[in-house]
């Protein structure tokens, strides 16, 4: 057991594994690869690549819009959860438990196909996706905010009260600025999670990264290459976003 464990932490082990894996992919089944579909040296390859990468705009727009809404919604849901009274607390618990129990994919389908009938409105694919992602994420955001706000020392509330700040101003000027700094790593995680979950919106026809890859696979019959590109696309975007969040954290930390 110990032997296996210590091996897992050695970088050489991972290198060997990666080398073996790429041999298997590139060498072992070389006949099956057809990189021409995304070869930037050819006209079709370039077109296909552009088609795939263009989806990035929608993936980003979906994720960023959804997370902005879910942060606001999460805060609104978190605040009653911090109350000492039972009623607001119950509302918070019911919302969080209910929303967390619904799979995102199911919520997306319901919002797109069900909500227009229930509410008698028409809703675009984009906003259906945003709404479903935002609602689903808001339950997690609410829990993050609640933990962040609860981590602020009682003395901060008392000091705010001693200079007669009301609840709103206490939250706005004293508690939330400190809480947000503390929950920033968790918010960054949520953004990464959201970028990944946005791929599910492809099922209702949103032209984001995953949908584009699917459509190209249907016309080109090259799932291996196209989905490999798709994996790389998500990888690059998410690594960049993670680096951005870390940079923001450092910046806030020094001030």
């Amino acid at each position, binding site marked *: 057991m110990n032997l296996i464990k210590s091996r897992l932490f050695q970088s050489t082990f991972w290198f060997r594994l990666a080398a073996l894996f790429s041999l298997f992919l590139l060498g072992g089944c070389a006949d099956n690869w057809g990189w021409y579909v995304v070869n930037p040296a050819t006209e079709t390859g370039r077109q296909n690549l552009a088609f795939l990468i263009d989806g990035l705009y929608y993936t980003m727009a979906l994720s960023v819009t959804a997370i902005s809404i879910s942060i606001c919604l999460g805060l609104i849901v978190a605040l009653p959860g911090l109350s000492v009274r039972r009623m607001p607390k119950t509302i918070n618990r019911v919302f969080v438990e209910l929303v967390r129990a619904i799979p995102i994919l199911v919520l997306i389908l319901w919002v797109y196909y069900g909500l227009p009938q229930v509410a008698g409105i028409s809703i675009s694919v984009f906003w259906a996706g945003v709404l479903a992602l935002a609602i689903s994420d808001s339950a997690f955001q609410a829990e993050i905010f609640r933990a962040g706000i609860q981590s602020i020392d009682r003395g901060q509330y*008392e000091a705010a009260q001693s200079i007669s700040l009301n609840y709103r101003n206490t939250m706005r000027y004293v508690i939330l600025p400190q809480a947000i700094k503390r929950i920033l790593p968790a918010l960054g995680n949520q953004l990464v999670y959201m970028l990944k979950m946005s791929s599910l919106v492809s099922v209702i026809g949103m032209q984001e990264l995953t949908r584009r890859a699917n459509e190209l696979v249907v016309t080109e019959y090259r799932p291996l290459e196209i989905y490999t590109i798709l994996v790389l696309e998500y990888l690059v975007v998410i690594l960049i976003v993670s680096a951005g969040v870390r940079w923001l954290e450092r910046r806030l930390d020094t001030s």
Partner: protein
Amino acid sequence: MTKPSTQPFIQIQNVSKYFDQFCALDTVSLDIALGQKLVICGPSGSGKSTLIRCINRLEIHEKGEIFIDGKIVDGSPAGRNVLRNNVGMVFQQFNLFPHLTIIENLMLGPLRARHLPESEARDLAMQYLERVRIPEQLDKYPAQLSGGQQQRVAIARALCMMPKIMLFDEPTSALDPEMIAEVLDVIEELADSGMTMICVTHEMGFARQVADMMLFMDHGKIVETGPPKTFFTTPKSDRCKLFLSQILRH
């Protein structure tokens, strides 16, 4: 209500406070006049902090009433108004806002609770920062200051609300020994300027100097009161005698 001129500024009438089963304050009554300087001492858990925290409603008492300037202090808007216009507080742990600069810490109350215009709030903050002798630190963050400086900022922050009475909850207990004097000097100056104050402290030298009334508490009750002269030399109760002999031994 009698004539306002003879009326004590703060009236505490039969106030009791419980933490679950534990009785932190047991029907405490106390009058404080404007200009008075009251020092409260007693063993830990005796209710001295709870008493001053009840005055500005950081703790909510279960029984009895507290009046400030003849108006009852409760959770109503009027009660909060009375507190805003009259009472400032300084904490043991300073409780400065770590994400705001010193000047922002001082301006927050005047801007957001008293609704002063920005320039006026800034002038007020600078005025009190000079009074606690650290005007040059205005753009630093609390963590960049020493404990003594932080506590002086906290005093200035409370003063920016223009209170008529200041509550000090063990203001030097969290300080390194060499920083106690600079904080006590500021409080002493404030006392000399005529500020009404209630101070919970174990600094008996300071108490002797500043207090015009001493108050000894034990088990949620006021055991003994008196001017510092007689309080320190001839305490009446055995409990107070024992306490003083313990803390004045060294």
